[in-house]
């Protein structure tokens, strides 16, 4: 199937999201769609699949102009959109999910369990994944759930599958499986539109890249003939320079020391230390226990044994409140679920962790609050309409900056960052790296958990590698590279 979208305009109210957007998708190719957050990638795909209607422009599928009115129509034509937030029913079984709304019925009009089980099995086998069709969806890993979504697409005979950030929540090994599946889909003539921020993946997987900037089509490049710098330049319209800004700061005394931290079955005997002004990268596969270790240090997850020392003194941390009293700040991996009150203003969000600073005898000093929030918006370059702006309406990068602003002014001695740039576009990423560097320069000890190896390598002074709840090694910046980190993370030795 070939698709050509051209001259697409789309406005929401007075806000024009797409202006002369489009791209051309060839038969059996994996086509990356790139652009900063808010560039209009998802909107363009939603127009293609009939979720939104366009204001202007044409969509041509196999030489015929089309105008899908809803996703069902697009699906019938063979175009399926797999959203970033997977569209699965967690309490139902795999098979019930696969046949949702298209159940096979017997002659009495009842569901034919047997036939569905058989067909589900076949479809899963064709995809080459080992999943029991009778398993309840919530027992599957995110990677497996995604496979079910792809399976669903194949069962309606999809010719084009659109994937929005498919690897954002996948482990390394699940990503490998996904890529294999995508390759075999391509061989069988299915075209894939691949939306992602992860440049390395795109260069590994895709055939061509189309770039959108501010809702406008900028250009398409063949992968072998381009490089990351050119793509970044297309995306942001200028040279971004070094992706990881230089950090020039003195590394001081040890601030945090963790000894023998253990929670059975989750992490064992975790030992490490972080110094003032240092960035300790924490790498490992998804599910290795990185997040749990950090949650335990922050008092949000009880542990069984082990010691935490801050500035040489043992401390008891049983709740986030105690962690904060001991000078620890924590930026969680999932800002939408744990990091922000999405329906509240920037102001209410920033002040939440700063209530002791902006109040006296529990009474809030509104003037102090406004000053703090204004300072946060300015210093961290949060692009918004002002302190009242609701966080829901901010881009991912700006949301993340609000989360940073919440913690920066609590004056932490130790700041734990869990996936600080997840779902953040390249421009905002660089700004966040600068914020991290500024904090390190002020003497904050920083622990940065990240699944993006280039980021870990670019930002860390030392890299700690976790595998199956154990610290497998700590590598100095000079010696760290993708190979030795991955070796440790996947069970090898160096």
């Amino acid at each position, binding site marked *: 199937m070939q698709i050509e979208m051209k001259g697409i305009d789309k406005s929401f109210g007075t806000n024009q999201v797409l202006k002369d957007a489009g791209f051309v998708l060839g038969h059996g190719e994996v086509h990356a769609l790139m652009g900063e957050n808010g560039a209009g990638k998802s909107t363009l795909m939603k127009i293609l699949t009939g979720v939104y209607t366009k204001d202007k422009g044409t969509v041509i599928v196999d030489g015929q102009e089309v105008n899908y009115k809803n996703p069902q129509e697009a699906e019938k034509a063979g175009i399926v959109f797999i959203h970033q937030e997977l569209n699965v029913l967690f309490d139902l079984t795999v098979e019930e999910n696969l046949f949702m709304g298209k159940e096979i019925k017997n002659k009495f009009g009842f569901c034919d369990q047997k036939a569905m089980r058989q067909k589900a099995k076949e479809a899963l086998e064709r995809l080459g994944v080992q999943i029991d069709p009778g398993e309840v969806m919530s027992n599957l890993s995110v990677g497996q759930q995604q496979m079910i979504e792809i399976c669903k697409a194949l069962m309606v005979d999809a010719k084009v599958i659109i994937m929005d950030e498919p690897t954002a929540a996948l482990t390394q090994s699940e990503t490998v499986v996904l890529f294999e599946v995508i390759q075999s889909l391509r061989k069988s003539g299915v075209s894939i539109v691949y939306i992602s921020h992860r440049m390395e993946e795109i260069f590994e997987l895709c055939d061509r890249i189309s770039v959108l900037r501010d809702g406008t089509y900028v250009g398409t490049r063949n992968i072998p003939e381009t490089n990351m710098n050119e793509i970044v330049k297309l995306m942001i319209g200028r040279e971004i320079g070094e992706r990881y800004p230089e950090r020039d700061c003195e590394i001081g005394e040890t601030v945090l020391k963790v000894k023998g931290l253990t929670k059975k079955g989750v992490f064992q005997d975790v030992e490490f230390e972080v110094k003032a002004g240092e960035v300790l990268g924490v790498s490992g596969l998804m599910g290795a226990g990185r997040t749990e270790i950090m949650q335990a240090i922050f008092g949000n997850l009880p542990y069984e044994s082990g010691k935490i020392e801050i500035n040489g003194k043992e401390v008891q941390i049983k709740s*986030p409140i105690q962690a904060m009293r001991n000078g620890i700040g924590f930026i969680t991996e999932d800002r939408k679920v*744990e990091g922000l*009150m999405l329906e*509240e203003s920037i102001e209410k969000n920033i*002040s939440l962790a700063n*209530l002791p600073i902006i*109040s006296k005898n529990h009474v809030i000093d509104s003037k102090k609050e406004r000053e703090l929030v204004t300072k946060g918006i300015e210093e961290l370059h949060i692009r918004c309409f002002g302190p009242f702006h*609701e966080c829901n309406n901010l881009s991912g990068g700006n949301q993340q900056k609000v989360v940073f602003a919440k913690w920066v002014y609590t004056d932490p001695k130790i700041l734990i960052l869990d996936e600080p740039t997840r779902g953040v576009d390249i421009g905002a990423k660089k700004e966040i790296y600068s914020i991290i560097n500024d904090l390190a320069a002020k003497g904050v000890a920083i622990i940065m958990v990240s699944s993006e190896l280039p980021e870990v390598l670019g930002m860390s002074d030392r890299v700690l590698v976790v595998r199956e709840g154990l610290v497998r090694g700590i590598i100095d910046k000079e010696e760290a590279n993708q190979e030795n980190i991955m070796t440790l993370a996947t069970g090898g030795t160096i």
Partner: protein
Amino acid sequence: METNKKKITDHLQDLGALIALALLVIGISIVSPEFRTGSNFLSLLRQSSINGLIAFGMTCVILTDAIDLSVGSVLALSTALCAGMISSGVPAGAAMLLALLIGTGLGAISGLLVTKGRLQAFIATLITMTVYRGATMIFTDGKPISNLGDSFVLKLVGRGNFYRIPIPVILLILIFIGFYFLLNKTTFGRAVYATGSNWKCAKLAGVNINKTKIIVYAISGFMSALSGLILLSRLGSAQPTLGDGYELDAIAAVALGGTSMSGGRGKIYGTFIGVLIIAVLNNGLNILGVSSYYQDVIKGFVILVAVLSDRKR
């Protein structure tokens, strides 16, 4: 730009409830000369104080994404205990203070069930609602407790006036101001909203979720007990069935005021307007001689319209 727009619609929405109230008052005033007298308005306000005080407490609970079904039973039990103490010779003032403490404690127990007991708020307060009502029946043996003597304080709370303004109305207004301050100007208020908006986020930002929940239930219990004292003062006796079904009027007032039942969003002055709408309906429909069966149907429809218009924005 966008924030300004949002604020204007926000205000319009607040105004919406206010306009509804004004329309009701004007409408009923036109048809009923009895309704539009100063003394009727004062008595209407006095009637509204019972539900109003409970609804203020309920607002706090609902803002944390919880619910308190036990308010009517807390009211009954604390009032019965108060009456029992007075009739057995405890000075009325002391008995009333104790009743407020008991109400606070009874509320806090619901809070403990929700936090430490990890029960869902609906179930936890369904339990306390049932148990407290039963305890009231046991304590009173199912009979009203009267012979409350001739205490000045007790009479003052429900029947007293200050320059023609009934004491319950003055209490209602002062406590409204107190709640406004508490919810909008204090760190506790922020904790309440944050807990209801996203408790995971609040917890990670150093908000003590359990403490916040226990306190809102304690406040709700206190308000129920206070409301009960006004009733006791007005009725001169403690009925074991006192306060039955009061939770529904309180929840209705909170909903009318635009507070989200899933917490995090809502305003205390919205609740105040909701309380007044319900009071005007009760009072006005009574004066117009509408049968109480029809009254409930009409009340239901008013709530429906209010909630639907809330959804539109």
